[in-house]
Structures are given as structure tokens and as C-alpha cells.
């Protein structure tokens, strides 16, 4: 690990001043579950680490039938997962959080950190770069082993997949993120917070190097039928091959409107308007759900070794839709019960 300066911010407004104007020079330390391993592996080598854990007003969950859900950036995943009101009013969000990573990580990891975590791409994590290239400028991902890489939004140069399993559920619910920078708060739709970097100096989100994620806001979900489906090999603590989170407004068994968000398929959480269009106005039958799944993946393309992910992602979309229709959370993690 490279030596670094360690400073603790006393309040939220001080954070921006302590951060740097350029990416890579300073990093925010919250739960540390991602940052510390990135620093140990020298994937990031900040000269300054800004500890924000002492900023009390960045922490906490509030649930209000009219205002919706607010989650402070420093709230740990376990605090969200164990909140009874979240479980009651936003069951699909609670479930996505409850199922993330492992108990040890959920005890430390924060919601802000979950939003800003870096990709798990094995080229990136092995120190070959976020947009890894060989000497001639060809992508190592395209030349090499891309079985876990993107099937959508994969025109390059980014081929990694967006890592959060919580964010798709938040986006499906229309969440917004509040960002503090230069003493000013700005609010961004979470969906627009994620961007596909075009060069090594860009990050995967619309955050400037001296900005801080303050909180996540989710509108009230009364009447929303939401569910997630995550396909992963192992029953627990495994990165998914594809996930889908949906939030539906229903009229009987007919879909009035739909938000369908795929995870682990593209460099950003992938909001599929095609799938939403395909299911809107339709009865929620297995065939219609499959048609929506096909629409979601219509533009998907294999990089060579990840063609199977197209099939897997379709299953995730179909199963999430059917689970939401039944207004119950799908069993996730490759469990068969949801569809058997």
C-alpha cells in the first residue's frame, strides 16, 4: 500500500475541501470494504484518504408514507436491511440490501459506498486498468476472457459490468441521489448518476472528484409491485451473472406502467425501456414476461465468451416480472423455487 495522508472531516461541508480536483489523488473512506482492498492491491493509490465516518448527519433512514424513503449515505447496509418500515413499504429494496455480499460486509458497507463501488472486472482488479489495453491499444477484454463482461452497452471502450445489486432496485423505484459539492446540493436521478467512461481518467458515475454523495431519496411506493431476481452460481456471497429489478403499477393483472432495470449486464445499471414498453398494457403472463425479457435483450451482443449471459439475463427479467406480478419477492441467487 502506498503511504497516504489520513484526515477526518468534521462536517459534510468540509469533505469537498479535503478532496482533490482530480480523480485518484484523494478517496473518501466510509465503510472501507471496497476502498481498503483497492488500496492494498494498489488499484487506487490516493495520497489522501478522507474519513467521513464521524459525520453523524450523513447517517440514518427515514420512511414516510408521503415523502418516501431517505437513506443517508453513511447508513450501513445492515441498518437498511433491518429497518422494519423499509421492509414493509419497500420490500424489494430491503431484500436487495439483505442479500448483498456477506453479513460481515453488510455490517461495514454503507449505502453511499455501495453506489460508488468500483467494478469487479478482473482486468481492473488485477491492476490492468479499467479500460485495459495491450501494447497496440487493443482491449484486453476483447482479446481475452470476457465471460463475466457486458452484453449491453458494450460498444467500448468500457466492457466491465456495474457491480451493485442494490442500485437496480433503487432505480426501479425511481430513486434520486443528492450530491454535495462546492457548498451546493444537487439532485440527480440515480439512473443518470451512472455513465460509461470513455477514458482511464473518467469514473463510472457522474460525481466530480470533490463531490460527496449525501443521501438517496426514493419516492413513496404505495401500490407499487416490485421484485428482484438475481442469477448467481452460489447460494450466498457470489457476484451475480445477471440481475433484474422491476417496479410495476398494476391494474388487476394488467401492467399499467413498468420500470425494469438490469444489473451486471452493462457498464451501467441498465434501464430497459424496451422491456417496459413490451409489458405495458399486457397481462402479466409467462409468455408476456418472456416477450419483455426478449425485448430487454434484443440489442445484446456477445463479446465472445459471454453469450450465455444473454440467456441468463432473460431468465432474470422474466422471473422478476412474474414475481412482482404475484407481489412477492422472488427467491434469488439461482434458487429454483421461483419458477419450479
Amino acid at each position, binding site marked *: 500500500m502506498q503511504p497516504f495522508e489520513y484526515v477526518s472531516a468534521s462536517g459534510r461541508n468540509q469533505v469537498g475541501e479535503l478532496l482533490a480536483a482530480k480523480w485518484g489523488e484523494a478517496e473518501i473512506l466510509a465503510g472501507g470494504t471496497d476502498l481498503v482492498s483497492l488500496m492494498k492491491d494498489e488499484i487506487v493509490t490516493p495520497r489522501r484518504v478522507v474519513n467521513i465516518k464521524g459525520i453523524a448527519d450523513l447517517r440514518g433512514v427515514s420512511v414516510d408514507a408521503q415523502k418516501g424513503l431517505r437513506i443517508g449515505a453513511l447508513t450501513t447496509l445492515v441498518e437498511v436491511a433491518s429497518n422494519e418500515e423499509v421492509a414493509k413499504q419497500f420490500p424489494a429494496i430491503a431484500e436487495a440490501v439483505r442479500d448483498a455480499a456477506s453479513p460481515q460486509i453488510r455490517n461495514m458497507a454503507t449505502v453511499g459506498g455501495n453506489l460508488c463501488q468500483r467494478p469487479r472486472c478482473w482486468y481492473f482488479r488485477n491492476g*490492468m486498468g479499467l479500460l485495459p489495453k495491450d501494447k497496440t491499444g487493443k482491449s484486453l477484454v476483447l482479446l481475452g*476472457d470476457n465471460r463475466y463482461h457486458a452484453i449491453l452497452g458494450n460498444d467500448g471502450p468500457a466492457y466491465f459490468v456495474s457491480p451493485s445489486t442494490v442500485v437496480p432496485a433503487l432505480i426501479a423505484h425511481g430513486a434520486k441521489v443528492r450530491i454535495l459539492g462546492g457548498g451546493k446540493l444537487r439532485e440527480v436521478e440515480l439512473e443518470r448518476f451512472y455513465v460509461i467512461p470513455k477514458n482511464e481518467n473518467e469514473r463510472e458515475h457522474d460525481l466530480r472528484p470533490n463531490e460527496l454523495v449525501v443521501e438517496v431519496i426514493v419516492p413513496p411506493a404505495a401500490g407499487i409491485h416490485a421484485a428482484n431476481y438475481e442469477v448467481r452460481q452460489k447460494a450466498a456471497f457470489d457476484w451475480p451473472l445477471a440481475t433484474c429489478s422491476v417496479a410495476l403499477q398494476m391494474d388487476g393483472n394488467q401492467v399499467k406502467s413498468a420500470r425494469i432495470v438490469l444489473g451486471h449486464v452493462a457498464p451501467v445499471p441498465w434501464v430497459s425501456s424496451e422491456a417496459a414498453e413490451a409489458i405495458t398494457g399486457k397481462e402479466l403472463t409467462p409468455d408476456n414476461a418472456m416477450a419483455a425479457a426478449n425485448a430487454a435483450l434484443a440489442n445484446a451482443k456477445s463479446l465472445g465468451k459471454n453469450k450465455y449471459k444473454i440467456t441468463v439475463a432473460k*431468465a432474470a427479467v422474466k422471473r422478476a416480472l412474474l414475481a412482482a406480478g404475484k407481489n412477492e419477492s422472488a427467491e434469488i441467487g439461482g434458487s429454483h423455487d421461483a419458477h419450479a
Partner: protein
Amino acid sequence: MPDYQWPDANHRSLIGKRVTRVDGPIKVRGRAQYTYDVRPDGMLWGKILRSPYAHCKIVSIDTSAAEKMPGVKAVQILQGPGMEIYWAGDEIVAVAAIDEPTAYDALKAIKVEYQQLPHFVSDAEPPKNIATSNEPLTIDEIGDMEDNQVPDDEVVAALQKRGMTEAPDPKMLDALAKDGVAPEVIAAMKKAPVRKGSGVKSPYKKTAAQTQGKPADAFAAAKTGGVLSEGVYGIPVITHCCLEPHGAMSQFTAPGDLEVHVSTQNLSGIPAQLAGPMDMPAGKIRVLQQYIGGGFGSKFGIDRWGVASAQLAKQANGKAVKIMLERDAELEVAGARPSAYARVSVAASKEGRLTGWQSDGWGTGGPGGGGSPPLPYVFDIPNQRKQYTAIVTNQGPSRAWRAPNHPQAALITMSALEDTAAKLNMDPLEFFRKNIDMTGPRAKVYEEEFTIADQLMGWKQNWRPRGQSEGVVKRGMGLSLHTWGGRGHDSNCDLTISPDGSVEIKMGTQDLGTGTRTCILIVAADTLGIPMDNIDLRIGDTHYPASGGSGGSTTIGGVSSSTRRAAVDARDQLLAKVAPALGTTPEQIEIKDGRVSVKGDSSKSMSWKQACSKLGAVPITVRGVNKSGMKPDLTNSGVGGVQMAEVAVDTETGVVKVTKMVAVQDCGLVVDVKTAETQVYGALIMGISYALYEEKFLDPTTGRMLNPNMEFYRLAGLNDIGELKVHMMTGKGYDERGVIGLAEPPVVSPGAAISNAVANALGVRVPFLPLTPDRVLEALEKGAA
């Protein structure tokens, strides 16, 4: 003549019962000290600079800046300028510093200039029509064949035909003989012609085809009047992934006295390995280890990093230096199992008798190429033709992995046989039974085991022909069988009975977590007639008498035999002293539950302590020895086991779950049924891991391992395991064979049984392990086309 023979079932108090392991509590409390935990005051941290390239030549090394850094106490070049490096992560320079960050900083300050060379990491099927290799063999290649248990006659034939690149050094031949290399192989090495190679470099080393019977006739007959089944099957390179990585902690306790703590399966063998590189007598090197976090075949050598820890300690005026591998190095360089693939054709009669086998195999074991798995596995099919191509790659070296070559051979063979049964529209259990005579001397064992496995799995009630499972999630069942040797290794056991009644055992063995301590205590306590906790057992120290390395399932046979002999001799000596006091002869005395009494006359008895007081002032110390060829033979070789697996496969996601596994296993006389069963559970879990998850991914462009971590190098977790049922064969026909090892056999079959279950569920074969969603979905797509 002392009665060393194992007592029969009526005369055992502990042997063959269910005894809880003695090392459980200390491990559960976190108090067991592993090599990783040894940290004397003032210890220096050793770190290693590793090659970033899969193939290169070292041009120059400049360590001057690192040497000048404050806190850096020693720098040792491990491979110097001019050396060719054959895999990424290979060791170049070691440093020792006062703390880990300083050691890392020192590594960064070292300047190494490399000349990059082209690398090759693919073990894809070799091009057709490559010629049989006639290149002379290197010492490394022969070592590799031995590591991978290539049959002796094949090694001898290769030596005779191909010769060697250089005449073997007599010292090395002695060392090989000590390591257990067969005399005929040593003789063939001595006689082998020394030849110059052609100089043509090809990664493919194709051995000459071997034939048995008349394969061409068998296949011609099957074409007209029988059944032919063709397929391709295989397993990629996997790693050992020891949870405690490799490493050592060395210090000089006095000038000229080296103490080394090593994470090792081969405690007693380490001093001799260190003596040469340290240029000091083996007797001045003390090796210690109490607990080990996994070895699986990868921890027999002191390794370059272990030697480096001692060299750095020497440089640092004898100070303690510890080098434990980081997780990435552990997975990249410290253990890999060779891959093995084969195109197979099987011929059978309409009635389901096997008549012919043909296989064209390939695989890699890294720079050494790798050995060929014994095909066809267990079933000696009458007519055979087989050929194998070893691929030399820059993947990093392979090491013996629990039952070397057998899991690969089982996967290839049992898959091909199950496919043949499917072509015959025959239940594979019936098909295997129909050909069980071809399994040789253990045919009856397999028969008995299948009967039990059938009941435990409910095979007959629940097995359905291929592809008949309905719905999105399809269920299926598969089976496999396996064999292993497992004769006990050489072992020495010192047992002391003191006049105060205390008993001490000293043995230079190691407990890999399999129950070795427990079993030594069981044998000693049962033989002496006293409780286990009356015995103080000391192992893990080369100051104790030597015992063999724990490899090839040889430990239990070795340590239980030497312990039995020591305990019988000590008991007999004690009884000789006690007999006059009881007014009888030693033969008339028995010891039970710590009471020493005249047989049939309980009025004439005394406590164990009283009996021991008859020794006077001097304790009894005896050495029990187990050596091959000793009579009576308390150990034996050759076991059989069968396994069945039941799976659920999600046909939309390709995710496979193992819902149930049954293992029925023989290992002669079972010393402790409970620890034996747990060893089989462990093997099944390890088997589920390699069947579903494990694979070493190499990047073709950089030659680096892409998943040297436990994130994408997946191991099964608790919820991935399903129901496990284990049955140990005991009683008549098994007990009287003596004690036989158990570590390897149960890990051989899981891959094959699970693959067969998936084929049964889906109706199509997923050719290669691990059975990941990409492979499952691809097989389904191909099957539908």
C-alpha cells in the same frame, strides 16, 4: 513373538468405534497455532518480488536501493540474471524487513530488467496429426511423470525409447529412490541413452499410442452388431487453494542451529531438503508444525520461499523471518492440478458388455507438460487404443492434487461409460454391474457398495432414463466408482510409560486435520487398555522420530502400525514387571479401562498407576517401527468406493445445484469411524467445488491468472453442498485387511458422478467441468439444435 495383529471386533475398546476428534476444541476456540500464527518478538517480514511475465529472461537485477532502505535487513536474489522464467509470479528476489509495508516498499525499490519472451497458456485441443514425440526426457519431465503417478512401465518405456537429455547424477538418483521412485525406473534412468534433442520447440508432447487386444476388431464388431458411443470430456486446471497459504518462519536459535516452522505435509522430510541449500547438516535443522490449514498434495517441499526465509534469517544475523504467500501468489504459483481432456470412443455389445476403448487425450500441467491420467479408469476393457499429448504451457507448475490423475481419469471414463449406457437405454447402475468383473480384484467390494449406495440414494425407485425430467428445473442422478492404494508409509513411534503411570508418545508426523492425532491416541489407548486422555501425544517436531510425509493416503496406515507396535511392546514389557506382583504370567494379564487384572479373576487386580509403579525408577521407552515388508503386515493397499449424485439443473439459467450425494467407501480396518466419515464429507465438498466452480483462468494476452482470489476462484459454501450421506464399509472382509488410507479415494468420483447426474437430468452431456452456466446453456443449445 509379540502379538501385533489388530484385535478382532470383540477385543477392541476404541478401534473401529466413533470417537470425536481431539483437536476440535482448540481449533474451534481459535487457539490452534498454525505456521501463519507463529510470530516471535522481533520477527522480520519476508516478501517476494515475482515475475510479472509468463515467460521471460532476467537481464539484470539492481537491489542496491532496497538494501539501503531503513528497516530492510536482508535481500536475497532467488533467480539471477540469465535465468529463464517460465511462469508469471515466479520468485525473483526476497527481502526481509521490520514490517510488511517496509518489505513491500523494498520490493518496489528493486529494479529488474526482463527480456520478454513469447508465452503460451492455452490447453485447447492440440492440432490434428502432430507426430509422436521422440525428444529426450529431462529430469524435470521424469519428476513430473512421477508426481502425477504415471505407471512405472510407461515411464520405463519412455526412457528406453526417448532417452534423456543428460546422464542423471547419482546423488539425485539416491534422492529419487528415497522419495519412493520405483527401482525399475531408477534402473531405466541409469541405462537411458543420453541424446541431444532436435532443438525444435513444440508445446505438444505426444506419447506413442498404447494398444491392448484388438481395438480395431472390437469397434468394427460394435458398428454392426453393438453400440458405439463417442464423446469429448475433460477438466481444466484447478488450484489447491489452501486456506492457509504456503510459507515458513525461520530463525537461528543459536549460531548453526536453524529452527523452521513450515506449513507442510512432510515434516520429517524438510530438514534434508534444507540441508543442501543452507549448506548445513540436516541434524542442525529443527522443523516444527502443530497445525496446518490444508495441503491437498501441494505442501511436500520446502519450496523456494521456504529456503528464502532461512537464507534471509541467516543474513539477518539469525533473526526470525517469516514468508507466507499472499492469496494471489498462493493461487498463481503454489499449486495446480493438471487439466485433462479426451476424445473417447467406447464399444459395447447389445447386451451391454464393454468391448472396446479408444481415447485421444491432452492436457497441461504447466511447464512440465503433465502426466497422463490412467485411462480407461478402473475398468480394464479388453480392447484398447489410447494416446495422450501433454501440452507445455506457461501456466505455472502443477503439484500432486489429492489423488493425482484419478479425478481426471474418473471424469473421462465414467462420463464415457454413462453415455454408452444411455445409448444402450440401460440404467448405468445395471451397466456398471454387468461389467464389474473388469474392475479386477475389488469387483465384489464394488458390488457390495453399490447395493448400499442404491438404498441410501433410492436409485432404483428414482432413477429415470435421460431427459425425462419435466419442467424448467430438471433433476437427474449419476454415479461413479474409484480406487486407490493407500498403504501405510514408514513411521517411527516412541512410546514411554513412566513409573508414575503417565504415557507419552513422540512422533515426527503431522496432522493435516484428518484425525491423525485422534487415531494415534485411539490405537495406543486401545492397545494399552487405558483412556485416551491418559496419553500425552507429541507430534510436529523433527526432534521426534521420523514419520513419512502425508501424501497418497499413507499416513493412517503408517502411524497406526508404528503406534500399535510400540504400544504392544511397551505393554508387554510392563506386564513382565507386573506379573510377579499379581502372582501370574504376563499372558494371563489383561488391561481394561485402566485396570490391570488377572484374566477371569478380578480379585487379583491393580490400577494402571499401581502397575506402573512396579517399573521402579526407570521408565520404559520403546520404538515402534513400520517399514514395508515387515511381518505381520498391519497395513494394506487397494480400496474401492462408489458414489452417487443427485442434481437440480435450472435450464433457463444453467445453474446446477447438487441436492444429494452418497459415498460408500472401503479403507480396510477403520480406526475411527467418525473421523473417517468426516474425511469423506470433506472430499465430497471439495468434489462439489471442482465439479461446479473451480477453474484457473489464464489471460491469453498477458499470461496472467485472472482469478487469483477467492472472489472468482469459487469454492462451495455451506448452502451449495446439499445432503451428504456417507457409509464406511466395515466388518468381515474389510477389518482383517489392516489399516488403509482414505484421503484420496473419496475425492476421485464426485466430478464424474455429478457430471453424469447433469447429463441424466438434461439429456445432453455437458462435456467439461466445472459445470458452470455458460457450459450448461451451451450444451443445451447444441442438444436442441
